[in-house]
């Protein structure tokens, strides 16, 4: 199996090199490092985002996703390395960076006591827009985000989905060419999530460059042109979702055993067959392994399990998901809600 899709380049380019239009990269990050006291959060992160594309930073809680976004949006100083937005250095030219970015953080950055429209207008003016522009943009955005009716109410009365929409609308008031979205759909109901996804897709279609963070495989799969998998402050894989999935084999064989008590026996039996890259999900009592040998592999595995007298409940083939990608590269599962896990399982059995 090929284990290096991309070449990690840890050299620091000097700024004159980056300023030249050698690339279409809107965001360039080189060797970014950050620690808080003794805790190292970023250990030399490199990536770049092409103009007009979406890059997803995918990783579990504490992987360094939010820290990366905070450094890129000038809220935090890095300890080392360099980051350029539209060619501007986030440390030395923070003011210029600020005029080309929009930030939607994990917590809705809205004023609770102002109305939706007042929030938009306030931020519009702080972005230095003229009053006529502010007026027109606020109306447009309220309409686009389906917030016209709520525009005169204070944000305190808004639902979670409405807040998130308003938050994104506020980030868009000055039409910044670069948008950072820190977990844009965490905590949203499925309908609000689809609306957010739709908006993000439209933004990209209109030429915006987006860097988003997510713990959600489906989200990265659906939205991102490129995915950077980050864990423990390091990039552990990078590519588009197809490339990442290819790295763990074209298909996966999943075997669900009937009883948790036969787990050890099953692990032994399957482990002998194919010891690299076997994942086990305790909740679902399911082993998953790369399907390489087709029917003969299936036969072999099943007979081994029979020899070990492990009762098998279900067998299926499925295309690798980003969950598998995650397991393969990090050795642990991405954070997921148990209920979601169960839902997925339900879908798979069918």
């Amino acid at each position: 199996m090929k284990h290096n899709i991309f070449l990690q380049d840890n050299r620091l380019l000097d700024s004159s090199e980056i300023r030249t239009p050698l690339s279409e990269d809107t965001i360039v990050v080189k060797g970014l490092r950050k620690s808080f006291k003794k805790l190292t959060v970023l250990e030399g992160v490199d990536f770049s985002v092409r103009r007009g594309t979406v890059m997803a930073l995918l990783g579990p809680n504490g992987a360094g996703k939010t820290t990366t976004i905070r450094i890129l949006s000038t809220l935090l100083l890095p300890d080392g390395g360099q980051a350029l937005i539209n060619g501007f250095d986030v440390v030395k030219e923070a003011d210029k960076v600020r005029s080309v970015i929009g930030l939607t953080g994990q917590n809705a950055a809205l004023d609770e006591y102002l109305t939706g429209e007042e929030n938009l207008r306030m931020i519009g003016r702080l972005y230095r827009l003229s009053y006529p522009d502010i007026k027109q943009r606020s109306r447009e955005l309220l309409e686009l985000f389906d917030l016209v009716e709520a525009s005169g109410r204070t944000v305190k009365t808004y639902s979670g989905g409405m807040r998130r929409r308003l938050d994104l609308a506020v980030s868009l008031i000055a039409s910044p060419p670069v948008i950072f979205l820190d977990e844009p759909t965490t905590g949203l109901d499925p309908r609000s999530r689809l609306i957010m996804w739709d908006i993000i897709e439209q933004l990209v279609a209109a030429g915006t460059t987006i860097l988003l963070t997510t713990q959600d495989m489906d989200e990265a799969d659906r939205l991102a042109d490129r995915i950077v998998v980050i864990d423990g402050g390091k990039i552990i894989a990078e590519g588009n979702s197809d490339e990442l999935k290819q790295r763990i084999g074209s298909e996966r064989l999943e075997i669900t055993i009937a009883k948790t008590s036969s787990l050890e026996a099953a692990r032994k039996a399957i482990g002998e067959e194919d010891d690299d890259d076997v994942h086990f999900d305790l909740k679902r009592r399911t082993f998953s392994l790369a399907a390489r040998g087709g029917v003969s592999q299936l036969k072999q595995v099943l007979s081994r399990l029979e020899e070990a007298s492990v009762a098998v409940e279900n067998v299926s083939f499925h295309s690798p998901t980003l969950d598998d990608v995650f397991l393969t590269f990090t050795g642990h599962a991405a954070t997921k809600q148990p209920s979601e896990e169960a839902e997925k399982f339900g879908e798979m059995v069918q």
Partner: protein
Amino acid sequence: MSKSTSFIANVKPEKHSRLYWVLSDSWVLARRSVKHITRNLDQLLAVGLFPIMFFLLFRYVFGGAIATGDVSYVNFLVAGILVQMLAFGANYTTLNLAIDLQRGIVDRFRSLPMASPTLLVGHVWADLVRNSMSWMIVLGVSFLVGFQPIAGPVEWLLVFGLALLFSLAISWLSAIMGLIVKSMEAAQWTGFIVIFPLTFVSSAFVPTDTMPAELRVFAENQPLTHVIQAMRAWLVGTPIGNSDWLAFAWCVGIIVVAIPIATWLFRRQALR
């Protein structure tokens, strides 16, 4: 969702001088904070009721037992209660700043091409408006319970001028506290820890003569006492001593020192 083109519009920032934008940002954030006053009913109630309660408490419960010489107690009390009210009112800057810092909105401000320390100006300005409202309420009540000032127009102007200046000074100190405290709970009690001793160990409610020597030295030389003495002198004609110019000097001094410190703290916090 309708057509995608409207998500992105061709809008350009206006071009003005740096000073213009600092003033503009201050104005935008001041308007924000002032709107909070009317939309946050709990705070509004506290602003109106707290000083009245204190006033009536001292006027009728403690007042009879406190000897103030030639001046009636209600005449003695008004300057003290007005200054105490300004000092407590400034705690809203600490509190509201701590609230802003805990929620995401300060991150938003800091990611904008604005002069983000003007957020402090917004809160201080709202204090000024809030304090002016409470002042009017308390002055109104004071006339109802027998306050008889002898101040002429010049004295009244001096009283109001000093009140505004003192409010500014103490609000900037509160801004510093708001930037230092780690939680909203701490923001609430800093008011009591700092403001209570300052207002009670002063000539706000009692003449300082009866205090123990050490306390008296502090009480007679701390800034609040000078502000109170000056106002009392202008309002009801008690002896003023050096308090008039000392009061102004203290206030200006505090403002001149506190603004750069608060701005520095705000910027430093931004990058941690």
